[in-house]
């Protein structure tokens, strides 16, 4: 008897599992679809999605990137190349800025390293090209006309250096400059 009972159990439990699986399958057959037929239908991606990289502008419409080379230094696959220049007023900007998206692994380190919130990853992954060369984006392709994810930040309002329209001592946290020509306390 003992042996017969065990045999029953041995047969019963796989059967239950089988039926249960069949039931789940059937249930899903009638459930609401999650899959969409891309590319006819496109899903909206979360804002934090790490896709195509852009260079943003500050609230005044100027380039945010100050060509500090931190993104290119942190990039684990070494796919960012830039060359710093400066305007006559002392404002730094990248003369060239190049990202090789055929090497980029979209890790987001560059965005994390950027002290000016200039470089940002966007929810866009549709960048297929037929040749590697067309995946090398130059500054014209990277620089956008908006502030991206972080509105309101302007590096030069906080940093001490003077640029056009902001003299020394006119920053957010600054006091007027010391007059070094006098010795009065």
């Amino acid at each position: 008897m003992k042996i017969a009972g065990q045999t029953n159990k041995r047969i019963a439990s796989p059967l239950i599992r089988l039926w249960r699986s069949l039931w789940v399958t059937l249930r899903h057959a009638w459930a609401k679809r999650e899959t969409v037929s891309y590319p006819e239908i496109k899903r909206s991606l979360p804002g934090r999605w790490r896709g195509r990289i852009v260079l943003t502008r500050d609230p005044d419409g100027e380039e945010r990137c100050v060509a500090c080379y931190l993104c290119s230094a942190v990039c684990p696959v070494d796919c960012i190349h830039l060359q710093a220049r400066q305007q006559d007023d002392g404002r730094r900007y990248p003369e060239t800025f190049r990202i090789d998206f055929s090497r980029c692994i979209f890790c987001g380190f560059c965005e994390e390293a950027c002290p000016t919130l200039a470089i940002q990853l966007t929810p866009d992954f549709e960048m297929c090209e037929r040749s590697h060369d067309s995946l090398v984006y130059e500054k014209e392709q990277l620089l956008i006309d908006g502030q991206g994810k972080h509105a309101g930040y302007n590096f030069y309002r906080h940093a001490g250096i003077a640029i056009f329209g902001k003299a020394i001592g006119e920053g957010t946290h600054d006091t007027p400059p010391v007059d070094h020509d006098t010795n009065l306390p």
Partner: protein
Amino acid sequence: MGTIRIENHEIPFREGDNILKTALAAGMEIPYFCYHTALGSLGACRLCAVEITPKDPGKAPQVVMACLEPARGGIEVSISSAAAQQVRQKVIEFLMTNHPHDCPVCDEGGECHLQEMTVACGPPYRRYRGRKRTFTNQYLGPLVHHEMNRCITCYRCTRFYQDYALGDDLGAMRLRNEVYFGRFQDGPLASPFAGNLVEICPTGVFTDAVFRQHFARVWDLKTAPSICPHCSIGCNTLPGARDGMLRRVRNRFHPDLNRWFICDRGRYGHQYSEHPARPLTSRVDGAKVSYRQALAAAAEQIKAVGDKTGGLGSVREDLEGNTLLRALLNGFNGIFTAFSDPRLEAATITAVTALQNTTGAPSLAEMEQADAALIVGDLTAHAPMIDLALRQAYRSGARLAVLHSGPTPLARFAATALAIPPHEMSVCLSHLSERAAAPSAANSNQKEMLANIVVSLTASHRPLLIGVTETLSASQIAVLAQLAAALGPGARLAYALPGANAYGAALLSQTGRATAMLEAIETGHIQNLIVAGNDPLGDTRLGARWRAARQRLDSLIVLDCVATATAEAADILIPVAAWAERSGTFVNYEGRAQGFTHTFRRPEFLPSTAEVIADLARHLELVLPDIAAALGDTFPGYQAPVPGAPGSPLPAPAIPMHIDTTIHQGCESHPGRWQAALSTWYGDDPLASFAPALTELVPAVAALISPAAALNEGIKAGERVRLQGPAGTVVLPVQPDNDVAAGTIALTRAVLAQLGAGHGDPLELEKVS
């Protein structure tokens, strides 16, 4: 000598050293800002806090500044104790309250001492929410950029600029937390060593204004051990390049030579290799051709004229290039020399011969130990770092005597400075030499001063004699050597030679070859001239004669990396690599062979001079020894110096030469009413004159004469005079200068070239109404 316990290690210390120096020497790290090996301790930054525990249990441990506390036995030093760490953290936090937070646009970032120390000791976040003190910046000239907000008041800049380099136009102003480091007014820094502020400042207050134009972070720069190509000192440097372009040059420590500092010519002269007019493609008769075509054309020319070929090397060309060119010329019995001016050839060879007969020239570190020095000529322009070394000797009390014909900044620090017209220099030097041999009574004011110089040299323990080869004749150089010999074995002798490899070039040349070559060209015995890195057509004294001789040449083949007058006039121009783009060897003023290695390669194909000559020999089907063999043949036992190592003496066979020290009364007598003197400045050498930032600082061109002479002639400052030389006339404003000798007109190299006059040549001066 004793031992001190630091972090539970027994560390030996030298009596008088402080704890910081002892720890750093042992490779233990104590954070610090204001201490510097060359500048010493000040105790300004308070960062080097350590805790010391006296052996005596009755005494409590205390936190002290490691840079101010003498090392002594019987104490235990803790760098990592909680109390010391807390002090250091607070110091950083306070320093950062006013920091402008502009690291992303600061050129120091990546090699900033403040960044490193803040990461190492500071609190991770800023707590201060108040407003920051700010400073305006000054324009300090084309070399150094000023951003005062980043200052941490360590006083390193003024200690270097004022105390060490003896400059007087940069200092500390105001008080409390508003101390300002700058000039009294905006304007270029006057010191020839101002560029060192870039390295001495631990933050980004002073940054390299030339590097700023093409800025790259330190981690992106390719570097390789190199040697400065701009004068005969051979300071060790570290060029940095990126994307096929040379970006900057920094100092590289050499224990005997430059140590922590280099001069501004060495730091900024490198711009010549980025000059827009630099030849980068080969040219044959003005048309751009490939390297192979240029080589074939050159080979054809040489074959056509057979053995009627001459070779002109250069004092700025490396040892390899000069040696191989000479070997090539030996292949068809041609004439080789490295000098376009016979006078300079004789002077340099005499100087090298004189050095071979002594214990050798002292290193810069040894020069600083001198207690009396005689300087003949202007060292600031011809060997800037010897000037800096002598300023150190002066600071430790050495008596300096300067004999000069034109302005020289060192005269300010001299106990005796005598302005002597070039034609009287020989008499003066002989007089010194005779007096040193047999003192006699002085009978005139000048003679008395000369007598005093001899007395101070004789009385000193480590006297030093230095001559500037370019403004001395061979016999004057020999007399200086005699004077050194007369002063006894303790006296040291050195010469500022006319180029980075002048010593090596002199060993490969022979007196009289330059004259022979010029005459051979003029008589048609040389129809084909190969010039490597030299500019005979732009020569100060003989430029006009060379230009005339050039008309007689069938072809002029030039190998160079700058657009000199000769390169412009070349029939066949083969551009070669600049020093940072090739490997080679320079032999400095001591005869120390130092290797340098290429920092980067340009996109264009640019071989070194030696490589071009080897390729040329192949085209000519000549069997030329390879470079190692050629050097081994010339300098028996030659071992190529390893780039980055301190260099080794060049094993040179002694030059068999009779030194003629007799003063020829005929040619040394007063040549007329006026005499030319070469007056250059620290940024002047054939290469650095292609560096835009330096040329911005060129002093205004004027005819410098002594105020007494101006009074005699009735010429006021700014009035124009017409100068007449052998090759032309020049109209210039007059500027009275106290440092100029009587009857002497001090002129720049360019003006002298227009006049066709060398140092000491007669000139006519006439007022322009």
